[in-house]
Structure formats: structure tokens, C-alpha cells
């Protein structure tokens, strides 16, 4: 048996076996933390990777893709890049859209409009079955010919699995909702699920480009041109080619690597992801505080054994490494368990909230969990590193134990007590630094200093914990001694006598509660702000969007014909229509939108960041042909009233002056808002994404809906919502988005309460002899129990108090720094007192309940046998 094994088994494994529950708890603490981090990142990466695989599959063999920053590529520019053919490159234009399959199930599919002549060179299609009368088409040549013959007006191809789901084979009809109208398409062929037919998780159909343009009102416009350069084109050649293409095309339309769309999407969700990861890390931090506590108790309890080992010739280094190994062992076990748990959690998260994020990228893609080993590795290593790091101090302490004559009981804690004041000062300094960290702006669009500030606050409260415990214990003794007599004194002595352990439990609890408070305040404030904003902006009685069997997704647009007919209805007193497209500027996405400024001028339903009257501003902006920008846009691009901005149009940039900044919580990408007339003219677009209707006085919303339905009959597939229904939907979406956040808080709190349980349990086990001594002195079982519960009460109360204070600081940082810098929103602080009081009370009571088992254990200590123990 090697010395290390003897050390490890004598100092770690045997004691761990004796103390199984506590070790399992410690491992569980790490596991939960690691699982949280892993799950957040896995779920995120899965969504992104399903998007990116769609991008790759659609790009096929393309080495370059031409995309527009603005509202699509005018078809006539195709002629300007005809020279590409001459150098041996293949080009394939495509139009991509979303449609819902008509009917109650309403599956959302991506519709790719392609030119069969040129597309086969870019995207490999493999036909499985075709309509009668066309060749079987298996080899490449044949496929091209077959494709060509299959692509007639209003026919489409679909992947075999989708064909099976929709029960539509060759010759059958599929009805899709496009532009608010149901249209029939004939299935001309079924594709094997390979290549582009696997894009969007197979929820994709292919049709002739002209068919798609016509059905979706995009005549004369294409969304992308994929280019396959001749084999052997070097990277330098590609870059040169890219420049040449750019110079042949209008500004705002450029060629680049196909993956760049993934990068854009990645940027869009980065802030969201970073925020969640930071929350996950706090959960992990709470988890690893277990390791410190467990190890520090281990070292204390095994001082005599350590001394004996040292006397037998074990060196300081060996003892140090043994305890570090224990930390690593806990980290590895907890980490391994954590990644297994994390995968399950990620699967659950995707199933539960996947919809929110998925709708965001592409409503058609169904996300499957992609298990990225590098993410699991990251979470695992973070867990192990954090465990090893928290075992450093206890291991150093173990190494300092002198041979044989172990230090006297109590002296170790006394040494630790000396650190209380310096630690407290460091804690205060940490809060000062946390304040300073709120001052700088974002780094690369991310609130790096904001996160630093949160972590400094957490560190500050943890460092102040020992001072708080000693002070509170003393104060409480003074106050409670009349009523509780000896119990107050015993609990006080225990609290400050085991300061290093009790203060870590307090710090962990404060961390958990701090997180709960800060997130509750942040989300509560956000929610209230949004409700107020919805009340101010939802001026109309009815809102109409294109229907899609799946009731909670709106996409696509309504044709101009619909807008015109709404405007002429006798029951309509006023209307507004929103129309927009998504644009990018240097790879940063934003929205270019439009509404009727004269409607806003009459309703005043557009709250301004500066205050002021939206009615007058809307009027002047419209007259001067200026634009309004949303607050997130202003923050993201550093734009203010009076600045001139460039917006990508179909024929190069459009420059406009910013007339004002308005409040908008509907998206964090930022919006440039044009008056509808000017927008339609500049960007050559018509129709509407949604139409808001103000009914003639005296009409109830229900009557209004009936009148609209009567007017349009079955002609348009639209969804009409009343003001209150839309409001409820908006809040439901809001709550769903923050469900994850609440789940994370719950995790942190649970782990923290487990931590209190773990600590109390450990302290009771550690103090068996002292408890026995109390019994010898005539303390009853009840007194012993009361002392443990009292101790738990102090830990709970202190944790709650410090947590609330830290939480207040953190919520300030979350609202005014992190949120502002990540999303650009100004949020009015609103404290959900009732929820917070209830939550804090629940945590406090749970802490008391957590002391029940340790208290019973303490009461069960038999004096005679406990005193015999070595």
C-alpha cells in the first residue's frame, strides 16, 4: 500500500463512509451547479446548432452567398453578376419564406423557392418518388431534367418524412397559408431526407422561384444567391471575388461565407445567453461553497489523525495533496453527475421553453438536443476547478498541522476568528469596487463590468459574513438571553465557535436569497414597465395578423389588398399597419419598420424616451420625412435625436435624420420606424405584418370581429385579437421568457438551504462530545434541540437579511447596468414586496425545518458513549 493511498483512505475515504449523507449532499451541491451551467449552454448551443445546420444544408456546396443587408435583392441585379458564369462559377438564386400548413395542426414549414435550372449545381436533391409521367430521376443528370419537369406553377417537392406526416404523396394537394390566404400546391415529388431536404429539421418544402415570389408577394425580389466557385479556388481568390462581386452590386448587397447568417443570429442571442450563464455560475458558486464547508470540517475533525500521519513521516506536501485530492474527488464525482443531470435538464428546458427561442430564429426548425462534448467538458472542468479551488484553504490548514501533538481543540477556530475584521474590511472594499464597476460602459456590446459588479457584490457579502455572524450572535444573545437563557448562549458560542463553517452557510444562503431578490425585483420591474408600456401603446380595439393554425405564432404578411379593404370598411374609424424587414449593419441585426405616423399623431400611442408629446412629434417627423428610432436601437448604435443614419434599401443606403427616440420593449434588436407611405415608397414594399383597427364608437370588440369576418368571409386566413387578448398574449410570452430565470433562482435557493442543512448536520456530528458534555451538565434533550434550531434561525435570519441587502444592490446593477447595456431598455424600478416577503419567509422557515433532523441527531447523542469516543 502506498503512502498516498494510506493517507487518502485514512483521511478521506473512511471518514466519508462514516458520514455518507453529508458527502452525498456535497456532491449533489456541485452536481446541481454543474448541471445548471451545462444545461443552459447545451440548450443554447442546440438551438444555435440546429439553426446553423439549416444554414449549412441550405447553402449546400456554395462557397459564397450573396445576401442583402436590407429588404432583399432586386432580381435585376442578377444580370450584373453574369460574369461569374464565365469564370466557371455556378450561381443559384433563391427565395425563402415561412408558411403554415392549413388546418388545425398548422405545422410551420420553410418554403424555398429555387430555379431548377441552376439549383442542382448548388444543392444536391435526391428524389425518392415522383408524380406519374416523370422520369424516376436517380442519377444527377436525370435529376436535373426531372426537377425541371417537376417544377411547374404551384407544384412543390417535400421531404419523405414531411410527406408522411402530412399524408401527402405525389399528386396530392397541400394547402399552405401565404399572405393570409390559403393556397393549394400539388405535390410533384418526394425527396429523400438528405442534403437541403434535411434543413429546418425536415420542415421544408421546395417550389419554383416564380411560384414562391407570386404566392408570397415578392415578385421581382430574391433573398439569396448561392455561388459555387470552381474547384481549387484559393482563399485569396475568394476574398478577391467577394470584392469584385460587391463592386458589381448596389451598396448593402454583398457576398460572404454562407455561415455569416449563423454569426448574426448568434449575436442576436448572445446577451440572453451570457445573462443566463452568469446566473448559472452563481448557482455553481453556491454549490461549491459546500466543498469548502465539508473539507474544512473534515480537516478540523481529523486533526489528530493528520498529526499521527505527520508523526509517521508524511510530509506537509503529502497532507496538502491528500486534501486537495479530496476536493478534486468531490469535484469529479459531482461534476460527472452534474453533466448527466445537465443533459436531462437541457432536454427538459428545450421541451419547455425551446419554443420561445426557436420562434426567434426560425419558427420552422424543431430543435433537437445536440450534445456538444466541449460544453460538457467546460461545465465539468468548471465544477472540478471550483471544488479544487475551494479546497485550497482547508488543505493548507491541514498541511500546517504539526506532527503528533495536534493543536488544541478550539485554537483553530480562534485563529480563523482573527481574520474576521480584515475579511470584513475586504468585503466593504469589494462593495465599493462593485459600485465603481457600474460606471464604465459595455465592452463589445456585453455588460462585462456589470457582471463584475454583481460578482463583487456577492464576494462582498460573503466576506462580510463572518463579521455579521459574530455581531449578530452576540446581539441576539443579549436580546434573547432573558427568554431563552442557556440556549441563546450555547447557540451563540456554537455560531462564533464554528465561525468559518457557519459564516460560509450564511454566505451561501445570502447568495441564494440575493439572487432571488435581485431577479425578482428585476423581472417584477420589467413586467410592470412592460404592462404600463402596453397600456400606452395598444390604442386600437382589434389587431389582425396572418393566421397560422398554430395559434401562437405570427409570421408572414397580409397583402396590400387586405389593408386597402380594411381601410374602406364602414365599421373602421381608424387603422394602423405595421410592416418591416430585418436588416443588418456591419453584421449587427436590427429591424426597419413602419407605421402610420398620422395614426400616432391622433392617438399619441408611442411613449417617448425624452417624455414630450408623441402627437406633436409624430406630426413633425412625418412632415420633415424623418424617422423615429427605438430606445434599444439608440443605445446599441449610439444614436440620438438629430443624428443622420443610413438604412440599407434595395438600391443602396437610404439616409434619414432621427427625429426622436421612442420606448419599445417588443424587441431588443432595435427598430428604425418610418412613416408607412415613405417606407413603402423607399423600400418598394406593400402589405402589412399586422393591422391595428380602431372601431367606430359604440361597437364592442366582439361586434367588430364579427363585422370583419363578415366582410372577408373565407377569403383571408387571419387571426383577429381584441386589445385585451393581445395584452394577455404579450404578458404570457413575457412570463414564458422569464420562466428559466425563475427556475434558476429556485435552484440556487434550494442548494443554499441544502447547504444550511449540510452545515448544521456537520456541526452536530463535529460537536458530539460537546453535546454529550451539555447533557452531563444536566441539559435536557429539548435544550440541546432548541440550541440547534436557534442556531439555524440565526443562520436563516442572517442569510435572509444579508441576501436582501445584497439583492437590492444586485437588482440595481441588473436593471440599470446589465439590462440597459445588454438590451438597451430603461426599466422603472418596482419592488414586488409581497412576493419578496413571502419568499424570504419561506426560505427562513425552510431553514428552520432543515434544522429538524440535525436537532434530533443532537438530542439523540448518548452522553456516556459519546464521551468515550476518541
Amino acid at each position, binding site marked *: 500500500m502506498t503512502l498516498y493511498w494510506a493517507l487518502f483512505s485514512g483521511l478521506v475515504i473512511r471518514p466519508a463512509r462514516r458520514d455518507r449523507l453529508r458527502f452525498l449532499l456535497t456532491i449533489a451541491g456541485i452536481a446541481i451547479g454543474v448541471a445548471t451551467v451545462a444545461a443552459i449552454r447545451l440548450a443554447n448551443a442546440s438551438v444555435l446548432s440546429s439553426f446553423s445546420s439549416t444554414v449549412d444544408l441550405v447553402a449546400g456546396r456554395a462557397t459564397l452567398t450573396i445576401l442583402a443587408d436590407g429588404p432583399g435583392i432586386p432580381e435585376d441585379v442578377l444580370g450584373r453578376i453574369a460574369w461569374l458564369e464565365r469564370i466557371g462559377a455556378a450561381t443559384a438564386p433563391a427565395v425563402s419564406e415561412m408558411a403554415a400548413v392549413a388546418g388545425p395542426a398548422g405545422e410551420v414549414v420553410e418554403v424555398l423557392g429555387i430555379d431548377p435550372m441552376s439549383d442542382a449545381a448548388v444543392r444536391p436533391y435526391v428524389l425518392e418518388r415522383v408524380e406519374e409521367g416523370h422520369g424516376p430521376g436517380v442519377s444527377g443528370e436525370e435529376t436535373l431534367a426531372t426537377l425541371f419537369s417537376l417544377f411547374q406553377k404551384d407544384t412543390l417537392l417535400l421531404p419523405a418524412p414531411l410527406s408522411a406526416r402530412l399524408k401527402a404523396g405525389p399528386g396530392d394537394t397541400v394547402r399552405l397559408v401565404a399572405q393570409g390566404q390559403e393556397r393549394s400546391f400539388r405535390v410533384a415529388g418526394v425527396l429523400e431526407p438528405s442534403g437541403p431536404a434535411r434543413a429546418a429539421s425536415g420542415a421544408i418544402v421546395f417550389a419554383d422561384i416564380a411560384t414562391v415570389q407570386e404566392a408570397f408577394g415578392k415578385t421581382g425580389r430574391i433573398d439569396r444567391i448561392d455561388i459555387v466557385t470552381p474547384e481549387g479556388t484559393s482563399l485569396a481568390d475568394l476574398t478577391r471575388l467577394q470584392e469584385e462581386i460587391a463592386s458589381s452590386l448596389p451598396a448593402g448587397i454583398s457576398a460572404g461565407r454562407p455561415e455569416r447568417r449563423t454569426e448574426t443570429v448568434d449575436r442576436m442571442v448572445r446577451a440572453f445567453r451570457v445573462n443566463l450563464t452568469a446566473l448559472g455560475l452563481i448557482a455553481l458558486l453556491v454549490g461549491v461553497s459546500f466543498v469548502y464547508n465539508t473539507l474544512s470540517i473534515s480537516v478540523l475533525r481529523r486533526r489528530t489523525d493528520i498529526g499521527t500521519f505527520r508523526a509517521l513521516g508524511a510530509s506537509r506536501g503529502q497532507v496538502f495533496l491528500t486534501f486537495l485530492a479530496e476536493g478534486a474527488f468531490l469535484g469529479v464525482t459531482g461534476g460527472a453527475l452534474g453533466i448527466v443531470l445537465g443533459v436531462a435538464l437541457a432536454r427538459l428546458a428545450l421541451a419547455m421553453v425551446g419554443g420561445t427561442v426557436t420562434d426567434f430564429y426560425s419558427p420552422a426548425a424543431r430543435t433537437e438536443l445536440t450534445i456538444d462534448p466541449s460544453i460538457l467538458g467546460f461545465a465539468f472542468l468548471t465544477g472540478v476547478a471550483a471544488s479544487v479551488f475551494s479546497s485550497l484553504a482547508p488543505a493548507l490548514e491541514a498541511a500546517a498541522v504539526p506532527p503528533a501533538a495536534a*493543536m*488544541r*481543540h*478550539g*485554537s483553530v*477556530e*480562534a485563529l480563523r476568528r482573527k481574520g474576521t475584521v480584515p475579511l470584513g474590511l475586504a468585503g466593504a472594499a469589494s462593495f465599493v469596487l462593485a459600485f465603481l464597476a457600474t460606471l464604465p460602459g459595455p465592452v463589445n456590446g456585453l455588460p462585462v463590468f456589470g457582471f463584475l459588479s454583481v460578482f463583487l457584490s456577492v464576494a462582498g457579502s460573503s466576506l462580510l459574513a463572518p463579521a455579521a455572524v459574530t455581531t449578530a450572535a452576540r446581539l441576539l444573545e443579549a436580546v434573547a*438571553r*432573558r427568554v431563552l*437563557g*442557556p440556549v441563546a*448562549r*450555547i447557540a451563540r*458560542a*456554537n455560531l*462564533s*465557535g*464554528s465561525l468559518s463553517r457557519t459564516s460560509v452557510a450564511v454566505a451561501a444562503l445570502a447568495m441564494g436569497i440575493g439572487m432571488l431578490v435581485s431577479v425578482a425585483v428585476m423581472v417584477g420591474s420589467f413586467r410592470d414597465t412592460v404592462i404600463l408600456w402596453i397600456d400606452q401603446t395598444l390604442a386600437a380595439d382589434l389587431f389582425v395578423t396572418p393566421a397560422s393554425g398554430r395559434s401562437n405564432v405570427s409570421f408572414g404578411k397580409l397583402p396590400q389588398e387586405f389593408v386597402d379593404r380594411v381601410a374602406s370598411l364602414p365599421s373602421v374609424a381608424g387603422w394602423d399597419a405595421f410592416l418591416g424587414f430585418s436588416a443588418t449593419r456591419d453584421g449587427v441585426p436590427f429591424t426597419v419598420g413602419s407605421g402610420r405616423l398620422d395614426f400616432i399623431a391622433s392617438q399619441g400611442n408611442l411613449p417617448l424616451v425624452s417624455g414630450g408629446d408623441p402627437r406633436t412629434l409624430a406630426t413633425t417627423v412625418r412632415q420633415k420625412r424623418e424617422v423615429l428610432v427605438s430606445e434599444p436601437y439608440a443605445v446599441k448604435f449610439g444614436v440620438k435625436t438629430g443624428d443622420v443614419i443610413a438604412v440599407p434599401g434595395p438600391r443602396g443606403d437610404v439616409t434619414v435624420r432621427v427625429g426622436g427616440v421612442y420606448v419599445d420593449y417588443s424587441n431588443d434588436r432595435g427598430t428604425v420606424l418610418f412613416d408607412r407611405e415613405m417606407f413603402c415608397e423607399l423600400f418598394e414594399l406593400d402589405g402589412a405584418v399586422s393591422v391595428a383597427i380602431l372601431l367606430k364608437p359604440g361597437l364592442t370588440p366582439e361586434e367588430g370581429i364579427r363585422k370583419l369576418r363578415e366582410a372577408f368571409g373565407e377569403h383571408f386566413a387571419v387571426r383577429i385579437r381584441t386589445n385585451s387578448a393581445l395584452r394577455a398574449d404579450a404578458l404570457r410570452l413575457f412570463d414564458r421568457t422569464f420562466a428559466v430565470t425563475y427556475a434558476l433562482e429556485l435552484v440556487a435557493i434550494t442548494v443554499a438551504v441544502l447547504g444550511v442543512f449540510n452545515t448544521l448536520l456537520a456541526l452536530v456530528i463535529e460537536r458530539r*462530545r*460537546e453535546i454529550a*458534555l*451539555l*447533557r*452531563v*451538565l*444536566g*441539559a*435536557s*434533550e429539548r*435544550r440541546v434541540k432548541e440550541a440547534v434550531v436557534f442556531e439555524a434561525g440565526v443562520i436563516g435570519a442572517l442569510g435572509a437579511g444579508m441576501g436582501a441587502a445584497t439583492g437590492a444592490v444586485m437588482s440595481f446593477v441588473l436593471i440599470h447596468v446589465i439590462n440597459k447595456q445588454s438590451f438597451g431598455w430603461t426599466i422603472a424600478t418596482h419592488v414586488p414586496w409581497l412576493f419578496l416577503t413571502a419568499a424570504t419567509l419561506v426560505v427562513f422557515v425552510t431553514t428552520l425545518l432543515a434544522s429538524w433532523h440535525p436537532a434530533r441527531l443532537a438530542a439523540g447523542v*448518548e*452522553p*456516556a458513549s459519546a*464521551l*468515550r469516543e476518541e
Partner: protein
Amino acid sequence: MGARVLVEGVSKRYGGDPSTPRTEALHEVSFELLPGSFTALLGPSGCGKSTLLNLVGALDKPTSGRILVDGLDIVSRSEPERDTYRRRTAATIFQFFNLLSTMTVVENVSLPLLLDGVPPRRADDAARQTLTEVGLDEKLTAFPYQLSGGQMQRVAIARALVVNPALLLADEPTGNLDSRTGNQVLDLIEELVSARGLTVVMATHSEAAAARATRVLHLLDGRLVAAS
């Protein structure tokens, strides 16, 4: 006033379950202690001295037999009554680990009073006074780890005496000390005990220490072999 202790046919068996072998630590032990007497329990290691003291101190229950203290059987009494008995009647001093490491000297000594419902201030005053009696008035706010072995035993004695018990049980109180310090501690016990007239039982395996007592009970393999 000291207590009258009557031990009648007391046996104590340990184990018997599969994990631990059955040992009979005490076998049919009977004796009587008169109020104010100072008795030494003498015998080799493992003969059952601690077991016997634990039974008399109500820290454990005998397998059979009766223990009457001032006429009342402590074995058959309820747990709260045994708590009270430990608090008020029988005080115990051990060889080591007598003190609560997280409390100061005064706090250690006042603890039994507090447990008995004495208001904190009065308890602390009484503790200080008793500590002065044992000559430790300079170490009032020290923690146990800051004391020498002899000082710790003096604190333990002060704590035992602060409640004015009728019975003092000392389990090798000098076992951990050098002979000079040990003698000082024994002097202190003798002095305080004779002043207060309480009944003392002291377990020891040292003939010299036992010589201090007025009566010696010899214990061998759980049986009382002779009394002198």
C-alpha cells in the same frame, strides 16, 4: 450537605448484538456511601470504574440493580428528572475534555446555573466567585485552549461546585497531569469538599491518589473485591 448513595446489585452489560461482543463491565456491585465521605474507586484499566461513575452520575443506565441517592432510585426516574438530577445533585469531572471549547472560562462555569434557570447576570456573578475560590480570577475571559491542563481541571472543579451539588463524581481528574499539578488539584478537591461537606467518588488507578480518600473500593473485572 452530602448525599447518601446506595448501590444495590448493579450490573452493566454492553453489546450482545452481532456487531459487538458481549462484555459484562460490572457484575452485582453493591456498596453504600455516607454523606460527606471521600471514596476512591481503585483498579486497573478496563475494570469498570468509568462505567460505575457514569451509572451513579445518571449518564447511563444499569442492566440490573438499583442506585438510590438520598433514598430515591435514580435509575427508574424519568429522563427530565435525571436531567435535573445531573443539574443539581451530581456533578462530574472527567480526565480531559471537560470544557466547551467555544465558551470562555466564566461562560463554562456559569452554564450549569443557566441551564437551571438562574438569570444570566446572577449566574455569571456566581461563576466569577467560584473561579476566585479556585484561584482562577485572572483567566475569566480566556478560552479553554489558552489554559494549562491543571488550570482546565480547576475550571472543571469550579463548574462542578458552582451548583452546590450533593455528590461529586471525578473520573481520573489527575490522570492527565504531572504529579505536582495532580496533587494541587487533589488538594483543591479535598479543601473545597471538606468545607462543603459533599460526598465524593473518585475513580483512579493511582495508589497515591487513592491514598487521599477516606475509603478505597477495589474494582477488578467488574467486581468489587475489597473495601479498605
